């Protein structure tokens, strides 16, 4: 089922890459220089790393039938803390620890609102989405804080053959995949998303699980925020991670995870994040006029979603015959 759902996102990715090759013949070329891998594909990976990381956290949140809109603001806060600490003469490990600790605290707050107070996730995280950037502005005193730390710069712009940022994202993705798919944790998360009441009655500690996924999402957002600020050696409270929650949610959905919760696909999220970033890169590389960029994005997103829809699959598959099964499955779907 998941495999079938991944078909169209993969096709979209291939289509976008093909479009790029048509416009720029050297698009797929890779070369090694100073022990670093260079090329447009590497750029996609590097620029897509923060979105991918946030999307991994978002996948687990969405699997519990929640949503986290605050990730962009949390990312901005992480960058602001990291940069101001270093700019004020602090050392890098402390800066990272401090930034991530604050992000975990913010995640605890989100999780508390959702799992203990029972506030709808979209509202609970909206609080931090609007207030968080204000907090980041306070930290940076409304300025763009720049840092001159080559060690700090490594997180977002460094290379170990591949960009370090994408290695971090893939490591987190792999870690989550191992932790949730090789143990019962993934099934428990899906159980909470499928039916919180039933899972609680079955003995699943749904409150703890819900709380944990929000903390993890905030942690991922924190690391992504550090990547973003490290990439440009500056913390911009207003624009760092702006709209990244939308990109992350799109990535998760394009990857075949339902916003209704109850099941998720980390592989799908990986592909989804790559589609989103390739889309952005394509807009620049094939020279889509800036005034139709958003139109282009809207058309691609809606096309992928329509192609993924079960109804389209039925139409393409030509299985209009068996009405006994088709409408029934649709009822479940609706």
């Amino acid at each position, binding site marked *: 089922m998941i495999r079938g759902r991944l078909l169209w996102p993969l096709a979209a990715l291939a289509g976008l890459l093909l479009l790029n090759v048509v416009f720029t013949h050297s698009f797929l070329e890779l070369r090694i220089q100073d022990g670093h891998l260079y090329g447009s594909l590497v750029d996609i990976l590097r620029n897509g790393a923060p979105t991918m990381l946030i999307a991994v956290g978002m996948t687990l949140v969405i699997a519990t*039938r929640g*949503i986290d*809109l605050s990730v962009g603001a949390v990312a901005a806060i992480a960058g602001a803390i990291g940069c101001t600490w270093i700019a004020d003469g602090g050392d890098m490990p402390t800066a990272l620890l401090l930034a991530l600790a604050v992000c975990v605290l913010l995640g605890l707050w989100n999780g508390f609102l959702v799992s203990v107070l029972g506030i*709808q*996730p*979209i*509202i609970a995280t*909206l609080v931090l*989405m*609007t207030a968080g950037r204000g907090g980041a502005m306070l930290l940076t005193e409304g300025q763009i804080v720049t840092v001159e730390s080559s060690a700090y710069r490594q997180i977002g712009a460094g290379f170990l053959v591949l960009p370090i940022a994408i290695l971090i994202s893939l490591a987190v993705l792999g870690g989550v995949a191992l932790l949730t798919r090789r143990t019962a944790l993934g099934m428990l998360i899906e159980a909470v998303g499928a039916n*919180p*009441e039933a899972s609680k009655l079955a003995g699943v500690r749904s409150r703890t699980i819900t709380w944990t996924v929000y903390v993890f999402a905030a942690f991922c957002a924190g690391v992504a925020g550090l990547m973003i600020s490290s990439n440009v050696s500056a913390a911009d409270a207003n624009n760092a991670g*702006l709209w990244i929650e*939308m990109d992350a*949610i*799109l990535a998760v*959905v394009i990857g075949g995870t*339902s*916003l*209704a*919760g*109850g099941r998720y696909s980390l592989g799908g999220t990986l592909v989804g994040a790559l589609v989103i970033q390739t889309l952005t890169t394509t807009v620049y590389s094939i020279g889509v006029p*800036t*005034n*139709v*960029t*958003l*139109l*282009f*994005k*809207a*058309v691609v*997103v*809606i096309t992928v*979603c*329509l192609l*993924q*829809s*079960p*109804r*389209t699959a039925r139409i393409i598959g030509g299985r209009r015959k068996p009405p006994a099964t088709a409408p029934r499955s*649709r*009822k*479940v*779907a*609706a």
Partner: protein
Amino acid sequence: MSTSALASVRPRLPQRFLPVVATVVVFAVTFGIGSVRYQDFASGQVVANLFIDNAFLIVLAVGMTFVILTGGIDLSVGAVAALSTMIAAATLRAGWPVLLSVLAVLVSGTVLGLLMGLVIHYFDVQPFIVTLAGMFLARGLCFLISVESVSITDTSFRDFATGTVVLPGDVTVTYSVFVALAVVAAAVYVLHLTRFGRTVYAVGGNETSARLMGLPTTRAKVGVYAVSGFAPPWAACCSRCTCSPATGCTRSAWSWTPSPPWSSAAPCWPAGPAMSPVPRRASWSSAPYRR
């Protein structure tokens, strides 16, 4: 579901209205603090200004209420409102008569909403995603019409924007307040006293039950998005009155505020019918999305 009938069955009424009560209390407390701290704060004009400044938000929130009642969400309203102003400005500049221009704006908003509703219902794609794409689409169309701000110089638009009415008690309000209040009244009528409105509530309560009862759920589910697309043009007309009355509204005046979809959705959530009107314990994505 009439409230009095419910009350006689079970003393559930207070809990149902708890969010509204909480919102009213928060409003009263903030207003009270303002009145104590600042001279002349507690005047009729300040209250009237709340309506004048938020007329467009009221209108957008009314449209959003329809959508949220069915368990959906519409992120595109802010972008559609921006598109409405752009279409109005562009068509007027091209020399269209005012009425035709207004008609074009209303039709385009409604058609966009209708399309999103059709995709959501027939292709079973999540409303969050469809309306997010709709937001991109509407914003993109804005850019396609013009990258620059377009001024509206038409006199009837300007008269509407600058015109004020003095109410008894020396309170001055703009026409936009009346538009907003009329929209609220119309929505109350439609939601509570028409078949369409009752079906909307039924769909939000339990779509499958509603369909099995023979209610036209498809019409309601698609219709709410059309309603939600119909509202932004009115909101745009209200905002035009507040943002820059002298030159007419430019797109840049408010459409690029960081998060119009959220800010327009937010009023519905705490005070309004909650995401899922009837089963209180369900989360916001309960019945309509379940797979």
